[in-house]
């Protein structure tokens, strides 16, 4: 894994630093893991720009989920409260938590940079959800199989439900 230290005091300068790094490796065909370390906490808009810089080149993995080139993927900062019921049709990266009692219907890839406690319906064989932390999250797949799971840095998918 390569680690790049990025001074993000000036965000536009930071983006050009990252782009320059990517350009230098444009002919490098090997898969590489890159760890970006920022000098200050990145803002959501800046974080989005960083992710977009990576998407512009080739397929990328984010938290174990592979995103093909030009995948449309939104980044949101949101807390999903108890009682909320949301349907995710498109890939999304979410910075925030899912509270106990919230219900998510997932039809695609979702990444949660945060803790997930709710009830998650994996609606089809392409559904997957990654979270930094699952705490007694309940997963239900389209066959009606139900699993409770706690763990860190885990990708729960339709296939994973079969294995578990």
């Amino acid at each position, binding site marked *: 894994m390569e680690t790049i230290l990025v001074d993000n005091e000036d965000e536009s300068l930071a983006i050009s630093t990252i782009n320059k790094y990517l350009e230098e490796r444009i002919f490098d065909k090997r898969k590489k893991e890159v760890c970006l370390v920022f000098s200050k906490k990145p803002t959501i808009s800046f974080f989005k720009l960083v992710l977009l810089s990576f998407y512009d080149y080739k397929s990328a993995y984010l938290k174990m989920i592979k995103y093909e080139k030009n995948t449309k993927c939104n980044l949101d900062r*949101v*807390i*999903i*409260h*108890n*009682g*909320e*019921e949301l349907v995710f049709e498109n890939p999304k990266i979410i910075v*925030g938590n899912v*509270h106990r*009692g*919230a219900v998510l219907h997932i039809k695609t890839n979702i990444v949660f940079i945060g803790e997930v406690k709710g009830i998650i319906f994996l609606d089809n064989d392409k559904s997957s959800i990654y979270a930094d932390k699952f705490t007694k999250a309940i997963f239900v797949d389209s066959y009606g199989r139900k699993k409770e799971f706690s763990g860190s840095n885990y990708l729960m998918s339709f296939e994973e439900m079969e294995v578990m």
Partner: protein
Amino acid sequence: MARVIVVTSGKGGVGKTTVTALIGRELAKSEKKVVLIDADLGLKNLDVVLGLESRIVYDLEDVIKGRATLRQALVQDKFAPTLYLLPAWMRINAPDIDENYMSAIINTLQNEYDFILIDSPAGIEKGFFNAIKNAKEAIVVLTLDRTSLRDADKVVGLLKNNQITDIKLVINKNNNAKTQLTIADIKRIMDVPILGILKEDREIQGAQNYGTLISKNSDFDIEIKNITNKLLGKEEVISKKSFLSRFIKNIVKS
């Protein structure tokens, strides 16, 4: 068009009704025409907190059943002439109100008033959904307890599910005790803007019991004014003046 705001909480006893009454009165003092609707049909208390219980002649039931017009049922406040109360059922066995009636009442009031505040019942049964149905904004009142936080969390989720996204919190009964949750906990867990933080105050108990006004420039009064200013979109934040600054002001005046 009036701004329709529901004041809700999930948990009972957190101070929804008091907050509704005080914000309503303060908005009226800012020359806004305000109507408060008591949607807590089973356990109505808004009239008591406002000290208006003896002035009620007609109520929501009379309006719905055609025994009185909406104008006849509205009770004018003693202290703020542009504040009106639409009282809930007076009788004990209050049936659930049809949601269409509530919509019709709010539609009628919307053109005449600047603010419609709906005091929602505790819990998340039909009464709650009736109360939130016509609202565009919500104030969720909570105390610094885990049970209150959990219920507020659920209520915020249900409000969002019902397309009410303009949600703000009012934290009530804060006494800075170590046994309470902290404001930082609420901010972190809820991630909802905080409209104001009200201290636990004995004076408010007196105001509730006797329908009196709270003392001018008390901490509670100042915070209610700040909440109202925020609702009105004013950036002005009032802070309590120290004894010294009041003393100097009096000298300058004289």
